[in-house]
């Protein structure tokens, strides 16, 4: 059972790292600000979600798992808000149609 959980953890964390990697490549390579923002927020949310998912079987208590999930939820909220604010600032400054 532990072996199965360990394999699950490794796969989930690796997949999460891949999403972060893809998000970073998008941030560096995409042509305009809005697509860069899109790459960053989407990849980070899924990537962090997968990493948290992979860490869940490794926690020692239910409280620690809940804290991890709460961290993910709070970062979702923060990054969604920040993305909206940056996009709005871009639109106001006339850089995006």
């Amino acid at each position, binding site marked *: 059972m532990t072996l199965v959980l360990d394999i699950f953890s490794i796969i989930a964390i690796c997949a999460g790292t891949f999403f972060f990697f893809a998000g970073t490549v998008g941030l560096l390579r995409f042509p305009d600000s809005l697509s860069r923002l899109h790459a960053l927020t989407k990849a980070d949310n899924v990537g962090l979600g997968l990493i948290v998912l992979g860490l869940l079987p490794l926690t020692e208590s239910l409280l620690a798992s809940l804290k991890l999930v709460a961290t993910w939820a709070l970062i979702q*909220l923060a990054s969604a*808000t920040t993305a909206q*604010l940056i996009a*709005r600032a871009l639109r106001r400054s006339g850089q995006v149609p």
Partner: protein
Amino acid sequence: MSILQALDIGLAVLVLAVAAWTIFAREAFAAVVAFVAYGLLLSLVWVRLFAVDVALTEAAIGSGVTGVLLIGAAGRLRQAKKSAASEQPSKPLRVWAFVLCVLVTLALAVVVLSLPDPAPTLAPEAAQNLAGTGLGNPITGVLLAFRSFDTMLEKVVLVLAVVGVWSLASDRYWGGAPGTSRSAEPEGTRALLAQLLPPLGILIGVHIVWVGADEPGGAFQGGAILAAMWMITMMARLTEMPPISSVWLRLALISGPAVFVAIGVAGIAMAGGFFAYPAGFAKPLILFIEGFMTLSIAVTLPILVGGPPQRLPRR
């Protein structure tokens, strides 16, 4: 070389690179963004040094609140830039500034490198006497029992900072409120965050103050989180800054240092020394002081960010 060592070296290189970026960034706003990233990386360094209390403070104060203060400053500088464009310092002046900076850095490096090894420490004594305070977190023990006078003075400095900011007010705004009026329409995205986050943030802030007695945390870190929650609601224009003439605001500002000094003076009569706690009552007294200090910090930081009053006082 183990993986952790390699990660530590990578982290150190990253901190130095972001620090260089902060200095060389052309625009004030870019420099502030780099500074915030620098603070967050530095708090990771503190975690790796097993100094979680310092890491929490660095993330909350060094990166968070200072970041907001600097973004505000950068915004105001941008408005003033047109008039200040001709006031570029001359080349010799810039060379002199560079030389002075290098000298200060070198002097600091010499001082740090010439420290005795192992460094002189009072940590064993502090750990030995911690039981007398009834606390489980040695950091809180040092801050509020062994070196409580220093901590009290730090809080006084915060009040002095508020006095400094308020003294920039022009005469006609004296007694008015800083920041924008609430009558402006609340802003959708920020309003959503300002409604969702504070219930959780207030809980986490109070939790961090409460566990500070036994685990990493304390009045400064928790107070900074509470301050952030108030700032978010003000940035979303759901609440507004109170006028600086408000009595409750001034009482809240000085409550932390005032309670601290009062208990310190009472120590002369009760325990035979300035800032001494009577035996057996150390922990409850420390928690009492921390409660008021948290209130003070949670009110002081947003007031500092708000800046001098910009609205006419209500008559």
